[in-house]
């Protein structure tokens, strides 16, 4: 099942995260070109990242992110070394992607 690879680093009180999702991210145009059916489009709709149960990053997304999209984001005020950043995403077909990474 597709998921997230997450790298998180705590420095000077700010956690920097680099996350890569494995997802084809096909747009409507690409689906039409490759399969003749726009309904085969499938891309991520919504992503959240949480630490200790609190949301630290949240995005609602369109068909225009790249294939196997890479995100970088930062947060502060929560999360110590050893805590886990947990990411969840849902795509257009309703499938869930998950991943977690330890803050180093």
């Amino acid at each position: 099942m597709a998921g997230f690879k997450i790298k998180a680093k705590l420095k000077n009180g700010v956690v920097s995260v680099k996350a890569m999702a494995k997802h084809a991210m096909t747009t409507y145009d690409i689906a039409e070109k490759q399969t003749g059916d726009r309904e085969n489009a499938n891309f991520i709709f919504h992503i959240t990242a949480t630490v200790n149960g609190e949301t630290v990053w949240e995005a609602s997304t369109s068909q225009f992110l790249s294939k196997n999209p890479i995100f970088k984001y930062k947060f502060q005020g929560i999360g110590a070394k050893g805590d886990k950043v947990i990411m969840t995403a849902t795509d257009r077909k309703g499938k869930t992607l998950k991943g977690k990474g330890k803050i180093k």
Partner: protein
Amino acid sequence: MERRKFLSMTFGALALATVPASVRAEDWRKAKPTVWTAKTVDDAIKAMYGDVKLIEEGIKIKTPDVAASGGAVPVNVKSSLKAKTVALFQDANPESAVIVFDINKYSVIDYDMKMKLKSVGKPITITVVVEGQDGKHYVGKRTLDVALGGCEG
């Protein structure tokens, strides 16, 4: 019937308004579907925020001057504004909304992503709108060229 419906709508709106920012999680695809089908940047901004005045300050957008491939254009958005949401639009693809971030007390707005930008034979403008906690809306823009490719994969 009408009055009851109106009252229940008001309570609903009140309930949303009183939820603290760190708890409110918003899936903008569900909450505002017309944002994602709007073709122009102006229409998408209107669908997301209404007819608001945009103050041009407080937002930095970084991209290469020329993106070699439209399939994965790196974009960075930075802002130290106290925000509720950050929305990114562009004027090259079939629809203009790309991503909407929900901001809370933990957020540090220094976000990177890779996006598809359709090569349309002329410079492309990325527009970022920040909905401020002060009720105002801020905007930043960045223009770049895309060499080839984009949404067609």
